[in-house]
């Protein structure tokens, strides 16, 4: 197992390196430059290019960037907050995005599992239909519509929670954004859990367990859930990454200085360093999550562990 993990980690590092290179090339292909502005002359643009070292060849820049990155230096912003260290910009905003995303994931997982399990246990009954309807509405109504509805009724009309994000009471003011953000993961997890549970409930070994007279709840927890959740974990990984790296619309609506908004602005402003940094944060999280899921998979599912160990 340890050998497998080490190998997986090394592969992941190599993947990240390739992603960074691809990002760099993509940035180079981006239309426009960070210094396109109505009031900037051609001569000044050339000067700015030289100043920030953008006139050097792509590979030189790439290796310099990779080297600096190991030292924790992600360059400076060209257009969003000029001359700011990108590492500081990302660091400050990532924390908030992780907080909102984490809360949303928690809510999404709990409610998604409850809905999914309820639906599966009452397959083809009105509870099943209700759960299905809830999860369908969850994916078909955009999160920004939910966000504004929540804002209007819970915060504005009823005044139970603050309308906008507030640094002085971060937890309370992040509840609404987290709920708004959790709508779609709840639906996805519920759907997936339901269909996996139904599969498992219909399998022969459950029939065996049932015939052995194991009590219902014990059976569900130890036999059904354990097997049904393995595929659910694979979908949860990417969902979590998407949540943690911020949602630009939710951040816009609630006035949250998060990383999702930063990346959109960076792309729009052609702020190369910020775009690469935000995109790479996403990449790192994604690859780490995949690694984690793979390893967890091995731990939960003995079949996979055994085949992996044989190799």
């Amino acid at each position, binding site marked *: 197992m340890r050998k497998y993990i080490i190998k997986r980690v090394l592969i992941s590092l190599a993947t990240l390196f390739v992603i960074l290179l691809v990002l760099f090339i993509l940035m180079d292909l981006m239309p426009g430059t960070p210094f*396109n502005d109505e009031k900037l002359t051609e001569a000044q643009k050339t000067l700015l290019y030289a100043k920030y070292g953008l006139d050097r060849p792509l590979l030189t820049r790439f290796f310099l960037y990779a080297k600096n990155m190991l030292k924790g230096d992600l360059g400076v912003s060209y257009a969003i907050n000029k001359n*700011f260290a990108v590492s500081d910009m990302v660091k400050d905003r990532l924390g908030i995005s992780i907080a909102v995303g984490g809360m949303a994931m928690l809510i999404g997982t709990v409610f998604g599992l409850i809905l999914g399990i309820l639906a599966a246990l009452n397959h083809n009954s009105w509870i099943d239909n209700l759960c299905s309807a809830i999860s369908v509405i969850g994916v078909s109504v955009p999160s920004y519509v939910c966000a504004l509805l929540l804002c209007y009724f819970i915060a504005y009309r009823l005044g139970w929670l603050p309308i906008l994000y507030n640094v002085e009471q971060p937890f309370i003011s992040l509840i609404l954004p987290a709920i708004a953000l959790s709508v779609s993961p709840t639906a996805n997890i519920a759907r997936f859990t339901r269909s996996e549970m139904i599969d498992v409930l219909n399998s022969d070994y459950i029939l065996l367990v049932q015939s052995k007279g194991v009590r219902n709840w014990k059976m569900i927890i130890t036999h059904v859930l354990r097997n049904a959740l393995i595929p659910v974990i694979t979908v949860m990984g990417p969902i979590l990454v998407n949540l943690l790296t911020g949602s630009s619309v939710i951040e816009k609506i609630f*006035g949250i200085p998060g990383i999702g908004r930063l990346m959109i602005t960076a792309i729009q402003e052609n702020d190369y360093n910020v775009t690469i940094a935000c995109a790479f944060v996403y990449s790192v999280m994604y690859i780490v999550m995949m690694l984690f899921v793979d390893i967890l998979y091995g731990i939960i599912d003995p079949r996979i562990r055994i085949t992996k160990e044989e190799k």
Partner: protein
Amino acid sequence: MKKLLTVLLALLILVGMTACSGKKGGDDAADVVIFQNENVRKAMIYAIDRDTLVKSLNDGSIAAEGIIPWKLAANPVSGADFREDQGSLVGYDVDKAKEYFAKACEELGKDTLTINLLYGTNEGDSVIKAAEQVAYYLEEVGFEVNLVAKQKKERLALMTDGDYDVALTRWGPDYADPQTYMDLFVSTNTSNNSGRYNSAEYDANVAAAEATTDMAERWQYFLAAERNLVADDAADIPVFQAGGAMIIRPGVTGIQFHSAAVDNYRHVAGKEAVTLVTNTDIIYLDNQVATDGTSFIADTMFMAGLTELEEGGNWKLDLAESYEVNDDATVYTFKIRDDAYWVTKDGDVYAPVTAYDFEFAWNRLVSEELASEYGWWLDTMSVESWKAVDDKTFEVTLTAPSGIFMGCLAFPSTFPINEEFLTAQGDQYATSADTVLACGPFILDSWTPGYSYEFKKNDMYYFASDYVADGGADKVVFRVLEDTQTALMEYEAGNIDTVILSGEQVDANKNVDGYVDRLQGYLFYLSVNINHYGE
């Protein structure tokens, strides 16, 4: 095997579809020569129903009547607005437009004329709406219009490269004079004249206006130049002048809007702590590198120049206590206030503001290394040279008398900079509240990028004591909020004191106490790529 074949076939169809569509896109490109035809451009100018267009924007924008916006400049003799003197140069007349269109078709020997209309998608909702409306009106006359949606930076890149047909673009005036617009379209201005408008008559009028010292004559030259550009040649097609609807909490006073200069928030009063809304964050605190309105407003809060703009756009002395001017109005000598200080974030005096700070700042502004977008600012003011005579005396020599000189001194790019502090901070200068010095009415207390920036009163500033008596705010917070609907809720809940409204929200809030409908200086126009020189 059958399944695999089906799969392959499906793939092939998809790839084929994509390839075909790519080719089709290329064929659709408009024939560039058509824009050299005057009748094409005239058809465009008459086709647009600007009044209805601004009604659907509904955010206080007004129909453009020429390339010079309303409230930019006043006749030096009569005081009348430029637009009053000129009258409207554009009109909505479908029949006339169709007539021109038919004539153009005949001359060009074509049945259809295609326009690719470039516009920016991240330049505000009003731009998107305006582009859709313009396209509709052009189609009503007979044109075929493809809307080309790009992000702002890409749109600008395409325009710089001349790789477009017609683009919806804008210009914000830098100073209160027609020159700020007229300079854009002279044939020698390769940076801004993207359509490569080239008219000897226009060039001559603009050159004559800039050469003359007679202000009345100058005015007439500009009027003539605008007629050349819009009425005679229809080279650039004015669309609308941007407005801005907002609500300011009743009781909060002192916010001064300027359509041709930076809005003045220095005299905010009526509450101890005022929270204002901004829809964009500060980009750069460094007053000489900043280029956007938000950064400039922040600069005017904690910094100050020789003059300041008052309500109505008139200047008054700020850090300058007095000034003298020689007989032919080319040498100005400013006396800097004795009680002007550089103040640190904690409110301690760092150093007095001296004439050397101005000399250093102006040298820095024009220096190549800085590559400031406003490096040309001093040229516009007709400044030839400047020097600090002694600690408190700053002398500026002009190439010729300039009517806009004193007003332009209120622009943040001309503010002083303390050399010692700048050198000490190095690369970190102006990247946080700790790495700037204040010399204006406020001190930058904190800045959380993407969230808010806060100012507190600067007790060392010369008008600080009067200010308190006037009910001035001790604390001014700017909160960055991009979504207008939640911002309005926050306003109604009483947590913020101003709110910017989108066009959709105006009707419902028009009669709310504190509703303000302001006119901005931005003029949106269609830049026509007349002498297409791109690919």
